[in-house]
């Protein structure tokens, strides 16, 4: 044994991002939503392709969060059609959305404060549990095996998000940045096809933002999860996303790659404020 082995497994040039992006996963067509007289979303259309990171941006009150709520079935638009995985629907319940593979995190962290990190993430597995309530409560036979299986999945997420040290800490005691990470963990536990993130970096310091960006990119890369995110930090948006849709006063004003959107006059006006 002396010749150094020539490594055959040399990876071809890292896949370009374009290659990883596939067909349309979710399509929003002519959606309008109003609360009484307030029009939150006006005739918005766009699509999200499989495997991409899609950002939804816009000034405060532009209708971004409403848009996410429409996508995961929390709000029901008065007009328009949403097509997810080729299936058209105008109305849908959040739990149906979840069972179809849409998971989300919230702008204001929505965790069970008294429960541990582990248990919080475990709740993300609820939809995947098949055994009855009774056998789960008694932890007998297949229910026990099932729990072990889910625990393994949860532990892998804990390891991935580097939150081993807070595994058993009640979530309410954690700093904000870590709570956000736990919430991402719970969303990941549902093994979603489409992950909706509502301001994942809000209130974080630079280092936490860098960590979170790394997690988002790795989720997207390694598991092929499609991601739609709302974010105010433009640096983060421009670095992470493949395509950006810009909303202002409930209307879509621009849609395209970060470069294109950045140079769009309407977007600049919306952010800097121009007399309408």
């Amino acid at each position, binding site marked *: *044994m002396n010749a150094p*082995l020539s*490594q055959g*497994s040399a*990876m071809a040039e*890292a896949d370009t991002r374009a290659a990883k992006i596939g067909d349309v996963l979710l399509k929003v067509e002519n959606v309008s939503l109003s609360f009484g007289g307030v029009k939150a979303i006006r005739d918005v259309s766009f699509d999200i392709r499989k495997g991409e990171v899609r950002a939804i941006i816009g000034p405060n009150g532009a209708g971004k969060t409403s848009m996410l709520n429409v996508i995961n079935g929390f709000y029901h638009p008065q007009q328009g059609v949403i097509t997810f995985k080729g299936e058209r629907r105008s109305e849908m319940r959040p739990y149906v959305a979840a069972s179809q593979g849409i998971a989300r995190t919230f702008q204001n962290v929505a965790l069970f404060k008294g429960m541990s990190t582990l248990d919080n993430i475990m709740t993300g597995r609820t939809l995947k549990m098949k055994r009855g309530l009774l056998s789960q409560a008694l932890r007998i036979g297949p229910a026990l095996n099932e729990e072990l299986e889910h625990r*393994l999945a949860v532990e892998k997420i804990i390891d991935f998000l580097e939150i*081993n040290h807070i595994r058993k800490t009640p979530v309410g005691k954690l700093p904000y940045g870590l709570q956000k990470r736990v919430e991402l963990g719970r969303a990941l536990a549902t093994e979603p096809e489409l992950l909706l993130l509502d301001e994942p970096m809000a209130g974080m310091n630079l280092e936490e933002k860098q960590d979170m960006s790394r997690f988002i990119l790795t989720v997207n890369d*390694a598991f092929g999860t499609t991601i739609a995110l709302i974010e105010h930090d433009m640096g983060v948006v421009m670095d992470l996303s493949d395509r950006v849709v810009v909303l202002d006063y409930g209307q879509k004003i621009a849609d395209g790659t970060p470069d294109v959107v950045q140079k769009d006059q309407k977007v600049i006006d919306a952010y800097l404020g121009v007399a309408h």
Partner: protein
Amino acid sequence: MDVTDLVARAQTSNDTVPKLLLRNRAQWGDRAAIRHKDLGIWQSWTWREVHDEIRSLALGLRKLGFERGEAVAIVGSNRPRLYWTFAAVQSLGGIPVPVYQDSVAEEMKYVLEHAEVTFAVVEDQEQVDKILSISDELPKLRHIIYDEARGLKGYDHTRLHDYSQVQELGEAERKANVGADQWWLDEIAKGKGSDVSVMLYTSGTTGRPKGVMLTHDNVVKSGQNANTFDRFTPDDTMLAYLPMAWVGDHIFTYGQAYAGGLCVACPESPETAMEDRREIGPTYFFAPPRVFENMLTQISVRMEDAGTVKKKIYSYFMGVANRTGEKLMNGENVGFKDRLLYRLGDFFVYGPLRNRMGFSNLRLAYTAGEAIGPELFRFYRSLGMNLKQLYGQTEASVFITLQPDGEVSPETVGKPGPEVEIKIAPNGEVLFRSPGVFHKYYKNDEATSATKTPDGWVHTGDAGFIDNRGHLRIIDRAKDVGRLTDGSMFSPKYLENRIKFFPEVKEAVAFGNGRDFVTMFVNIDLTSVGSWAERNMVSYASYQDLAGHLQVVDMIRKRVDELNKALSQEAMVAKSQIKRFLILHKELDADDGELTRTQKVRRSFIEDRYAPLIKALYDGSPDADISVEVVFEDGRKGKIEGHMKIVDMTIYPVAQAAVKEAAE
């Protein structure tokens, strides 16, 4: 064949770490050698399994073209796979070079370049990125191997390899080539005790880090001696949580573990080490003083929040422990009633406390690195934990002196370890000679000859003396030690540390270099003295007010007197008794440039700023006035004027025992 022959053979056959691996596999094949918490569950590997893992890695490295004598960087937190890399590299006659995982790319580049590293085995993406960012400047580096694949999927894998794939290469070789196992054993047999086994870069406060080369003899011998000294057996367990690039970790969790077949547990992540310690319950633990200090603070804070009954029980039994705990541990005579009370306290308080800290199974703990406060030290010992001090450095493969059981005190660092000789140079510097003395600094003969004499004595750079019990006391860095006019040694830091051990004193500055006698500035501790004032109905408006209070001056006078009495018992420092002192009218502050940002006294600056006070201390005046400019927290500048009383102290005659010792 007579006995000495057998002993000699046994010694040569176990003179390198890889040979010890073979012995451990034969002797303790089914015992746990290393544990690691992964996905929330503790995983264990027996010596047999460890042997197999190391063999596949070694053969895999060879397949990648590893040659005898090459250096391999190891970067990451304490993980079994990285520890196995040490043995795998050594089995092939290579030299592992552990690097601090938190070093920035620039620092890492220096070490990797200087050590001429050809392979790097690292923990994860973070380290891979760091090395890739400097790899253009490291022409000798051929391959990078990582343990954790996360995030590395899309990377160019021409010279980047997954750890398990390298091991698979080794396994494939074993299948294809029946001679592979024997080849590996032959490679191990080629190793000699005098071969360089590891290169550890010392972080050097000044200048570039130096690569300390230790031989297998150094590591194996030091491990064996330490095991003998404290009677370690394969039943002992320790937690590997200190940086792998630090000599302590290398000797404790690698040298000692291989030499004595001890079990090493690796935490899940650096942040979980404390929690993991509670789960593992190590029998042997090492930590610098600040770790013990943090634990005590946490306990105190929690006790403050506890209910009245709990508080009462705690303070009562801590009193019992204070009285009897240490005596019991030192095997002294203790009355029946106190013995009984201590037992009771152990059940209600000490046991649960030890459990809380993860020390339920603890047999022995060491601390080193800096001075440890006597109260802190006693707290742990009175709880029934055998906490001891040692003194060592990289150039010694750690051990220079250790405290034997029953001869433990906070002031000394112990007696010379097995086979260690120490002597004190005329300038007060400590020199040692031992089987652990390093081979040399890599590519730095100048530094080597400055540190190591031709007959094997090593300059530690620390000043110290041997007390009348034969224990070494370290007092200062040798270069900071001065002289009084009569030629006796004067170490300001030693005196300051001693007086700071009293809770009433927060900071102190001693003067005496080139003068007839020693004087001192003292800062009182506002928390401690303030709470005394509250209890004794002494009202005060400010620090300055309290510092000038006659009762406070008297309190500090008593403490200085205590110190003088203690100093008179120590021949080397008996002349350094404090003759005059004053309590400063303001706290020394980093904002005013009097302290560094790490709270160290800036001696020369203080000497300038307070020159009138120092003058008064030496010209015999009963008091002194000063006015200095200060910077307030909001950035405004102002003047603080002060009038201080100077206190004259009694100087004790040098104790007879101490004189005799000095004469010897």
